[in-house]
């Protein structure tokens, strides 16, 4: 009856009512304010941690039976670990690491065990003349600090070797070589150039944030849609609605209205947090003083990426919300939704996990495949776009398949909704779904 029941204006009228009904509710307002506060706290957390950590000095001891060697190692490690940020007055800047020579291995080991030291660097010269450096630490073996100490070991070795050269040797001053990593799978900027490490790190961070937000939005706001439909059935107002509007109008209006309410809350929560993240460096400098910035977390974010995220958010939410609405029409009470929604939540979880795998660079072919297959594609393709260079045709294919899936699901969900809203007092089950899906065919 599409000609008898055009989508508008009724879908719009229903969407407006659903939107107002939700955003005017005290629970909505309270949850929005609370979540906004939590998001702001999370965004400000790195500054807070740095603030609390600003007076902390990490002690590292160097132990060597060769006093001269120990002094060289202290000097090198100190210069590598304590690099003053640009714009900071070195005279007033407090070094975060204190590297000092220790008397004996056992004493330093005991101090490490007591937590008084964060690491002990054992430096000895072997009979062959080669240096043997061991770094004992309470941190992870592949942490940044361990890597820096590794650099210090190499530099100490070079200094030690040059110290043995004859005084007549004509050498230019030692220059640290420039070093960078270029991955062929690194995302590129608009000009096709690989992103720098800071931008790449920002993309990985944002990828996790976006995928988590998408997952949470789909689960939470999808359940809003399902609960809204079930509540209409349980209050029996559905009996009035089905004579006033077509199932297509009701389904579309509900998804649009509740989706818009969800999007409003989503923006209210995320925009202030994003603003804080964007200006995190400036806030850090204002609170902690110059030299405390560690790079803006949003440096990798571009308008195109934001648009891509918006597209996958809307398409992904639309797809899941339609299924949630059809599902909500099959229960007589909102309480029954928990059980029925589990399979749908599992689908979202699979997409989420595949996306996390994609963000860490794993998964290979099947992750690439999942980035084209709805309902996983909103998560996985979003993750791929954030951390790798995705060819435009792959992106277009993924969005096209997602749009086609939404068109098909709209037809099937409308039929299921039309059948489901008239079923009262029956236990929801696979049979009911299959019967409705058959009628849809």
């Amino acid at each position, binding site marked *: *009856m599409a000609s008898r029941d055009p989508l508008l204006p009724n879908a719009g009228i229903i969407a407006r009512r659903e939107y107002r009904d939700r955003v005017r509710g005290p629970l909505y307002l309270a949850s929005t304010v609370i979540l906004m506060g939590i998001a702001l706290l999370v965004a400000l957390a790195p500054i807070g941690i740095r603030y609390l950590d600003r007076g902390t000095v990490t002690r590292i001891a160097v132990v060597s039976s060769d006093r001269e060697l120990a002094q060289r190692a202290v000097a090198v490690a100190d210069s590598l670990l304590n690099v003053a940020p640009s714009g900071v007055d070195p005279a007033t800047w407090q070094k975060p690491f204190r590297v000092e020579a220790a008397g004996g291995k056992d004493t330093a080991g005991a101090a490490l065990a007591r937590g008084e030291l964060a690491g002990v660097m054992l430096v000895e010269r072997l009979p062959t003349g080669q240096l043997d450096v061991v770094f004992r630490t309470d941190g992870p073996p592949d942490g940044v600090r361990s890597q820096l100490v590794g650099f210090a070991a190499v530099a100490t070795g070079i200094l030690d070797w040059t110290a043995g050269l004859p005084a007549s040797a004509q050498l230019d001053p030692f220059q640290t070589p420039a070093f960078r990593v270029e991955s062929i799978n690194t995302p590129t900027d608009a000009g096709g150039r690989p992103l720098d490490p800071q931008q790449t790190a920002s993309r990985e961070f944002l990828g996790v944030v976006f995928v988590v937000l998408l997952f949470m939005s789909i689960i939470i706001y999808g359940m809003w849609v399902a609960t809204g439909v079930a509540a209409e059935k349980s209050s*029996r107002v559905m009996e*009035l609605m*089905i*004579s006033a509007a077509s199932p297509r109008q009701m389904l579309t209006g509900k998804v649009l209205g509740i989706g818009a309410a969800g999007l409003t809350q989503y923006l209210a929560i995320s925009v202030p947090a994003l603003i804080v993240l964007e200006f995190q460096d400036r806030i850090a400098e204002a609170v902690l003083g110059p030299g405390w910035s560690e790079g803006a977390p949003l440096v990798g974010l571009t308008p195109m990426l934001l648009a891509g995220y918006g597209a996958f958010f809307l398409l992904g939410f639309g797809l899941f919300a339609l299924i949630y609405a059809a599902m909500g029409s099959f229960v007589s009470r909102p309480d029954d939704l928990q059980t029925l929604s589990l399979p749908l939540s599992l689908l979202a979880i699979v997409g989420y996990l595949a996306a996390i795998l994609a963000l860490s660079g794993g998964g290979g072919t099947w992750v690439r495949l999942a980035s084209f297959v709805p309902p996983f594609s909103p998560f996985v393709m979003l993750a791929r776009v954030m951390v790798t260079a995705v060819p435009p045709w792959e992106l277009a294919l993924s969005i096209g398949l997602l749009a086609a899936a939404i068109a098909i699901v709209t037809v099937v969900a409308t039929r299921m909704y039309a059948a489901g809203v008239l079923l*009262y007092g029956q236990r929801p089950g696979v049979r009911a779904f299959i019967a409705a899906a058959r009628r849809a065919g």
Partner: protein
Amino acid sequence: MSLQIDHVTKRYGATLALDALTFDVPRGGVFGFLGANGAGKTTTMRICLGIIAADAGEIRWEGAPVAELPRRTWGYLPEERGLYPRMGVLDQLVYFASLYGEAPHVARREALAWLDRFQIPEYAGKRAEELSKGNQQKVQFIAAILHKPQVLLMDEPFTGLDPINLVILREAFTELRDQGRTLIFSTHQMEAAEALCESVAIIDRGRLVAGGRLRDLKRASGRRWIRIALEGFQPAPAWLAEIAGVERVRRDAAGAELVLEAGAEPGAILNVILARGGSVSHFEVIDPSLEALFIELVGRPADDDAGTLGTAARPVAPARDAA
């Protein structure tokens, strides 16, 4: 004839809900759609509204298939009462009228007038959940008529109303009928149907049992009815049923109704009663009541669920011998 139900058949799985149901509803009157629970009344109304599709047959209004008509042709008061609990009364009246295409400012004005008419103007700004069931029912009725539908379908509209609200609703029926609208309602309450309906359709197990003008149906009964009251007998004596020519006796507080066998003469029955010493204070040859007519045609009262289909989605219950 304006609304034509033409050989409409509907199955729910193995259950035959409507079996080639056929009857006509005249335009501009009050029409009673009578049957026990599960007889197929709600299913018929839902097919009229296009909520569900018939397996066979067609329903036409003014010659046009109902599927081709705009939704605002119809107003619907469902049997299951429900409003948005947290939404204001006036807001939801305007909302429903808007869905039917009514301009919001017109709907608002009309809604306020009807709330006033139904003696609940103070509830306009209140949430629906704050209203009593009876008042919620009145709000639902307003929601069904606010867009001025040509045909108003009502499923058990009098259920749950107190006597005062019953009178208010009946007056509204009359007013809408006088405006030329067609009112169709289902009910168990035969007194209400008898008081309001010019025509009725009586259905049982998805089939039409009888239909047409109420007066004609009563006259076509072929049996004669006597209303009698005897002094000194409260209730009426049991021996009335033993009189030759009396088929059935319905006793009530005021006396009794005697259903005579075909060919039995009221005068002869009166003579027998007088001969048995009965002091007759009231004797009247009457048309059968709608309730009596229903029982005669269907074999059981309308509020007797035996032999019904149950709700539309449930399988049919085994039929009980109506005799």
